[in-house]
């Protein structure tokens, strides 16, 4: 485990030594801020309208602001994750430093886990930007904190899944652009799967629908912690890291 931490720290340092970490954080803060602005503006307008019409409408910050915002964040993450994972292995393969890692007394899974954790920590930093907005909600309102926590857990699990898949794709090429592009395409595909089968209730459609990253996030956004979804994400993370380790081993045999 010590080695995992050494590699993880190195990855994080690399992210923060280049502009990429700051760019991603700034980009996310901006987009999320825009989403937050729109969501709260609509919420306030809705409140005014309800008052003017004299009707007693049920209003909930959790339901009407936070839930759509979490869904929005999960979509934005799809675009950010390829930028986080593309360099993970591709860069090391290109510069030859992979040779250093693979000839050090470190096991493959330690390298992979370390890199994945490093990427996940960066992703957490990026997500952390949204805490500013959520803090504002707490300052001026009384949202329930438990569903928010569940929502963030969902974001982390979904991010972890996509990061694991991105890590795998990064092991397959020396070219960061290709790694990023393919990862983006795969993320998009996993996202769109639920659209393709929205009206398909056959067994086949259900399977495809199940594989969609988004369908499993909906529960988390609502604040519902369903073990089925947690297991889906955890098993996807495991699967992603597993194929990464297979791919790394094949590097040795093909190289």
């Amino acid at each position, binding site marked *: 485990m010590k*080695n995992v931490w*050494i*590699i993880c720290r*190195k990855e994080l*340092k*690399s992210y923060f*030594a*280049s502009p990429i970490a700051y760019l991603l954080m700034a980009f996310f803060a901006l987009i999320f801020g825009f989403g937050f602005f729109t969501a709260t503006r609509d919420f306030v307008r809705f409140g005014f309208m309800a008052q003017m019409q004299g009707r007693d409408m049920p209003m909930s910050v959790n339901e009407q602001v936070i839930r759509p915002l979490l869904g929005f964040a999960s979509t934005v993450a799809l675009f950010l994750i390829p930028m986080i994972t593309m360099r993970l292995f591709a860069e090391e393969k290109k*510069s*030859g*430093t*992979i*040779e*250093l*890692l*693979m*000839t*050090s*007394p*470190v*096991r493959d899974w330690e390298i992979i886990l370390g890199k994945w954790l490093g990427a996940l920590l960066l992703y957490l930093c990026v997500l952390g930007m949204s805490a500013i907005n959520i803090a504002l909600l707490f300052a001026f309102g009384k949202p329930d904190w438990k569903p928010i926590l569940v929502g963030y857990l969902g974001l982390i699990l979904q991010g972890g899944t996509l990061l694991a898949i991105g890590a795998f794709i990064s092991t397959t090429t020396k070219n960061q652009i290709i790694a990023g592009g393919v990862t983006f395409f795969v993320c998009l595909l996993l996202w769109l799967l639920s659209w393709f089968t929205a009206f398909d209730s056959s067994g086949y459609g259900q399977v495809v629908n199940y594989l969609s990253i988004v369908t499993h996030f909906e529960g988390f956004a609502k604040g519902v912690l369903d073990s089925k979804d947690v297991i889906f994400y955890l098993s996807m993370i495991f699967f992603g890291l597993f194929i990464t380790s297979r791919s790394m081993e094949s590097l*040795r*045999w093909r*190289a």
Partner: protein
Amino acid sequence: MIKVEGLTKRYARTVAVNNISFEVEKGQIVGFLGPNGAGKTTTMRILTCFLPPTAGTATVAGFDVLENPHEVKKRIGYLPETPPLYPEMEVSEYLTFVGRLKGISSADIARRVGEVEERCAIGDVRNKLISKLSKGYRQRVGLAQAIIHNPDVLILDEPTAGLDPKQIIETRELIKHLAGDHTIILSTHILPEVEHSCQRVVIINQGKLVATDSVENLTNRLRGAESVAIEVASSNGPLEPHEVQQRLEQVSGVSRVLPREAREGRLSFEVESLSGRHIRPELARAVVNAGWNLNELRAVGLSLEEIFLQLTGSEKKNAEPADAEKEVIA
């Protein structure tokens, strides 16, 4: 320390290393010699557990590279052809990272980093970004990285490639200093390097072992006969080349005289001796006795370079390359 037996590495279409066997004893410096693409890097990568062999075995310090890679890796320091550096790190930071990765405890790491920085003369750049370093410094940082955990075995893939002459000398000195505590394999296609720093040579060509012996033995065995360059000038009147050549041929122990150059009353020849004969004193006497001036007399000798060319080039000339190999190895 290192034992390689029947090592073979096959890629999809080519055989990079073909049935190589050799042994390296503790504390030796072994030069791994061969033209580009001979299979040097592949062999080294197998020894460092970066690549698995297709067939055969390799053991380092008694541990098999396939069965016990973890133990092998602990005992090996490896400098690949391009030093594996992270440009965004500072030198000390990088060495600390590598040291930790190689299993140095956090209590010892600062001391070790300081030691290797001093040893490789990179103390003055310790707080610089690696991306800002010159090629020579990068190479030295690469070397520092390889020795940081004080490994039993050092594997250096062309450690002096791309350095300027001064840096090459410094690097060679450094490698010589490292010998003794470490067993070193270094690959190169530059021959003087082997003559300077190695005790033993392993020559491979097109994936096959061509020769393995100590540097002296190899030069002696292949040299045998002496080769001497001689320049003769006339003291009075023009020289008759034919006459001079005849005169030289009469010296005892001379097997062959080859005219090289003739201009303005100066003639130069290359004289080859019979095996095991020293002909220089006799030659000098013969020239002086004939009343000519002796301008130059110098042993040419077969350098390792020529031996190398003979060994690696012989396959094309020989109808049976296998025979050529046997001759050398036997």
